[in-house]
């Protein structure tokens, strides 16, 4: 953020925060926000691309599927005891275990992915974090060369408080 001097403002109404974000982005500022819930108008105003968590979660689920297949087929072949006159490798019952492991590993990888994303996000975006932004306010951070212009836009949009980040 060299050369950028961010300011942070807090808003009581998500609609005001969304208006400020739209104006700041139009004026060329880099904008971040923190809020107690994912308010649709704020999320839309920020215009962030969709999270690519699926790129991690989907391979995680596939890994679960492969692990389930390897476990059921591999252990049955390693200890080939015929039960109920059924084939050693009986695919229909194995599908149940394979499905459960697909869901389990997929969900755990999804958890790990969101944990890394969230913790990484917390480190990167610490400047916008405000205690009340998880309670009842929307915090908006604007970074750019013209700090005064940012302050003016934020105040005009209805910011309660504008301060240096």
């Amino acid at each position: 953020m060299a050369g950028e001097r961010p300011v942070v403002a807090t808003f009581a109404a998500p609609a005001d925060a969304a208006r400020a974000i739209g104006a700041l982005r139009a004026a060329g500022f880099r904008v971040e926000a923190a809020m107690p819930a994912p308010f649709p108008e704020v999320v839309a105003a920020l215009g962030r691309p969709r999270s690519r968590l699926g790129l991690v979660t989907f391979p995680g689920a596939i890994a679960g599927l492969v692990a389930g297949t390897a476990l059921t087929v591999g252990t049955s072949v390693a200890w080939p005891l015929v039960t109920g006159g059924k084939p050693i490798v009986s695919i229909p019952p194995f599908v149940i275990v394979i499905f459960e492991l697909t869901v389990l590993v997929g969900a755990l990888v999804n958890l790990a992915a969101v944990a890394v994303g969230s913790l990484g996000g917390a480190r990167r975006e610490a400047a916008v974090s405000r205690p009340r932004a998880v309670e009842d306010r929307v915090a908006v951070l604007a970074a750019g060369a013209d700090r005064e212009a940012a302050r003016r836009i934020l105040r005009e949009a209805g910011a309660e408080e504008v301060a240096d980040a």
Partner: protein
Amino acid sequence: MTASDSFRSIEETVRATHGRPGLAYWLGLALAGGLAAFGGWAYSLIVRTGLHWTGLQRPGMWGNLITDFVFWVGIAHSGTLISAILYLFRARFRTAVYRVAEMMTVFAVMTAGLYPILHLGRPWFAYWLFPYPNQRELWMNFRSPLIWDVFAVSTYLIVSTVFLLVGVAPDAAALRGRATGWRRRLYSFLAFGWHGTDEQWRHYTRAYLFFAAFATPLVVSVHSVVSWDFAVSVLPGWHSTLFPPYFVAGAILSGVAMVITILVPLRRAFRLEDLITPRHLDMLARLVILTGLIVTYSYATEILLAAQEPASDPERSTFLYRMTGPYAPVFWTMIACNCGGPILLLSRRVRRSTPALLVICVAINVGMWLERFNIVVTSLSHDRLPFDWRVYVPTWVEWAVTFGAFGWFFFLFLVGLKLLPPVSIAELKEEAAHLAAHAGAEEASRGR
């Protein structure tokens, strides 16, 4: 009321639920803990001195303990239905009630999971059910329904717990600010580094969608797997392709009835009437009607299919035994509770009367436990060989373990209520902001 006033009001209401507990709470906790301890002691009799404490005798080797397992797995289902499936369908009424349903799911699976272990006879060998490398290179039999249960129930417990805790993170961050002492440490831990930044929300909302997408087929699979414990055998009354959908619908019926049974006293005791409104109860009651009608249809299908068979057919004989034999009171009480209860709710007046709704839902819970008993016990008591028929009667030890499970579940739930927010603060704030913006727009258009 502005959006931020609504946010504060929601938080204050939730914080108040974590205040100093009253006498009723302590009495409830003592009763639940006492029941759980008594059930545990009764079970210890079986472990210390043997199965003669139970009414289990050939051919009826499954009784109350397996009935309890199936019942509690069923109870666990509505949590995922309400939190995951209704989330995917964007049903807004779930917002106020899904946290209680999720907590109920986790505690009900923790209760259900005890029973297969208790039923092993030698519970200290429960780890044999999991695959682990050993020097004899022995592996489990993946063709056995018992192993399917182990994988399905374990996966369900882990995924439900993760789903619950991920949902709690933003709420814990909201409560962290004004908490002190151990509660602040607890919320800081549960918040998991949450600051509500847009980057965090971006990943979080996506991850939540994936959790819901994983949990939805999982909820269908788990009770289907439980139904296959029965359906893959050749016993009359069990060997039916109807079982998976029948079990899933029954599970959701019992689970939603249990959610209502818990919510009605909870919203009053913790003054949550403004957040959990009669509309929410009404919507849940409609789910009871829907699933109740599916269960009624399944009962009718089972009976009609059996009635079409010739008089000598074991399937027909088993169903006649259920309806007219020594277990007939169980069968007809089950029909009255599970078919009659939901039909009564078709009346809007009955549905909107909170006491009537509570009574009907308690009756459905009783009916669903009896349904599990009816399935598990009557088929074993009246199999294909008449010389083998024998009536199973649970002993006081088995009843103690059954009621002990209710004690264990409610003990966990009462403790959980004091530690976790019973409603989703973040989602209610989103809803409140939506309503405030809507009201503002309406006012502006009126002003014009």
